[in-house]
């Protein structure tokens, strides 16, 4: 099996509600994969199931052939699964550079006592992290905000901070939950460019939820359409765009009588 991330027959219930049913995913290395679907279809739930926020009721999740079902979110994240959030989840009292630094948490091993007494290992690793953070901020064009609180940043920049932060965890797969939600067309174009660049520079596979067709069509190699927790269509963008079931799910059934 060559899949980087492999999900098999994943089903999840919230009480009596079946939120996701028999979901399958095979994400190859370096692939950009899209997940679309109407509101409430369960897209973000699928993200949360794979990233370990919820544990699926049934099914298998393998990351590089290692079972990650049931692990804690931070363990899964440290194994190489970075993500961004639909509604920005930034730390509001923290400045930008600290956001990027924080995401290196799992890469540090100087220990608590190293931190208490500011040991040599601690200083060296923190300097290393700082360099890496500077590099990332430059790449995402946020270095001019380095010492500002995130809440004072323009919306597009906040999104980029979140992306940079996710990349700082050194992921193999990047999950983007509606990366362009609420963006202006200009910011959208910039975002597409940034995602392309991330894909090239960091050698990651990208799995994204998106509503804007333009964005999905331009970026994704393959798309799944989710309706009421079930995948109704999967394939390259052109195929999905013309799939009658997808059109039906989005626009409703045409009255033929």
């Amino acid at each position, binding site marked *: 099996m060559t899949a980087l991330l492999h999900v098999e027959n994943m089903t999840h219930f919230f009480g009596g509600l079946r939120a996701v049913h028999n979901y399958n995913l095979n994400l190859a290395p370096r692939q950009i994969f899209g997940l679309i679907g109407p509101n409430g279809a369960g897209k973000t739930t699928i993200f949360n199931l794979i*990233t370990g*926020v919820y544990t699926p009721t049934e099914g298998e999740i393998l990351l590089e052939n290692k079972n990650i079902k049931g692990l*804690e*979110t*931070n363990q899964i*994240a*440290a194994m190489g699964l*970075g*993500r961004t*959030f639909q509604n920005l*989840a*930034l*730390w*509001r*009292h*923290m400045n930008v550079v*600290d956001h990027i*630094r*924080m*995401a*290196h*948490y*799992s890469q*540090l091993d*100087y220990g*608590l006592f190293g*931190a*208490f*007494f*500011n040991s040599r290992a*601690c200083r060296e690793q*923190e300097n290393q*992290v700082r360099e890496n953070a500077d590099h990332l901020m430059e790449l995402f064009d946020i270095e001019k905000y380095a010492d500002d609180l995130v809440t004072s940043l323009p919306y597009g920049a906040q999104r980029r901070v979140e992306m940079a*932060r*996710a990349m*700082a*965890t050194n992921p193999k797969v990047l999950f983007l939950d509606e990366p362009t939600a609420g963006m202006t067309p200009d910011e959208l174009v910039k975002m597409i460019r940034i995602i392309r660049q991330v894909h090239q520079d960091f050698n990651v596979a990208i799995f994204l939820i998106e509503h804007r067709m333009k964005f999905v069509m331009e970026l994704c190699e393959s798309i799944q359409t989710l309706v009421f927790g079930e995948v109704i269509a999967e394939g390259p963008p052109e195929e999905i765009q013309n799939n009658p079931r997808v059109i039906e799910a989005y626009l409703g059934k045409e009255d033929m009588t």
Partner: protein
Amino acid sequence: MGIAKKFRQIFSTVPMLGWFLGILTAVLIEYYWGYDYISYYLGLPKIPVLFGALIMLKEPVMIPGALAYDLIVYVIPVLLVAKISSVFTNPGAALLEKLPLWLSAVIHLVCFYAILHLWAGINDYRVLVVKLTLVSIILTVSVNVINGYQGEFSCSHPGFMALGAYVSSILTLMLFTNDKIFGAALLPPGLGPFLFPLVLLAGGAAAAIGSLAVAIPSFRTRGDYLAIISLAFMFIVKSAIENLNIIGGARGMGGQPDLAPLPVIFFWTLLCIWVIHNFVTSILGKALNTVRDDEAAAESMTVKTRKTKMTAFMFGAFWAGIAGGLFAHVLTYINPGMFSINRLAEILAMVYFGGLNSIVGSIVGAVSINVLGEALRPLELFKWIIIPLILIFVMIFRPYGLISFTEINAKKLLEAKHKRQQGVSP
């Protein structure tokens, strides 16, 4: 506002060393002439202990005298010497800047301690106030780790303090004194000062272990519920001690050897500030902030939130235990009533007054509430109207406290001030 701005401008060129020199002059003036000349000619009965606040409040007639004393002994010499000496303290500070930062900081701290020792040494009451203030600083900074950096509302600090105080008291009573409960001293009392750090560490460790009772529930609840759990913990500790007759029960425990002179407490306070500062500026410490601001995001960014919460509680409680141990050996008497809701109110007032998420804020809060509490003592009941009023105003105008979300910047604090920069008030 104009005067304050001008004042700031004039004194912005004074480095830390200059202020030290100014304060040293004031302290020396008080030391040599304070009683014999200045307070005598001003008609004051003795040297005013806390800048004359006590005298002024007790006998309003003395107000002009006490104010004049403050002016002659403190204000004028400090400002004058600080300003004039900046001619040579600035090059001095520039010279110190060439040394490694830690060495320069140590030199400054030694100077500071010498001045503090001299000032406090003038009378026993001052020594006690300074000691209790330093203990409060440890306590406040440690609460800030949990309530500020980690953002939980924990009310268990008096409980942690009690654990530290009792464990260290039991150890010193058992080891170094002939006590009626624990029998003859197990070790020669001469060893006391050398083993005291270990005793304190044991007290801190006991508090840290006790804090697990609050830390583990914190995995599942936050906010109000955790506040209730931690409050319950505080009362459990208090009533457990009250019912343990072997350690004195509600009557308390006395006769601890006086192992906590001013230098020892000063050292522990510095150690506490240094360690906590290192921790909260490191990535492992910043993890506390991420848990406070958005736990889900923290998890996704590989932060081990459970470990982080547990660390915050155990670390905060550890220092509270140390503070408790020092407190017991300053007063040489403790009883469970000292670690109750009054203490909690005092601790929380210091933290929220000074500023959340800031060590500087905690120091400011601890010093101001302590000194204010002592200075307003003659007002008796009205003291408990004035201090809460001040707190209410702080909460209205600065909801996060006076100095919140700022860290110590030692380099900036100690550097030479050739160019125009904001001065540090004495």
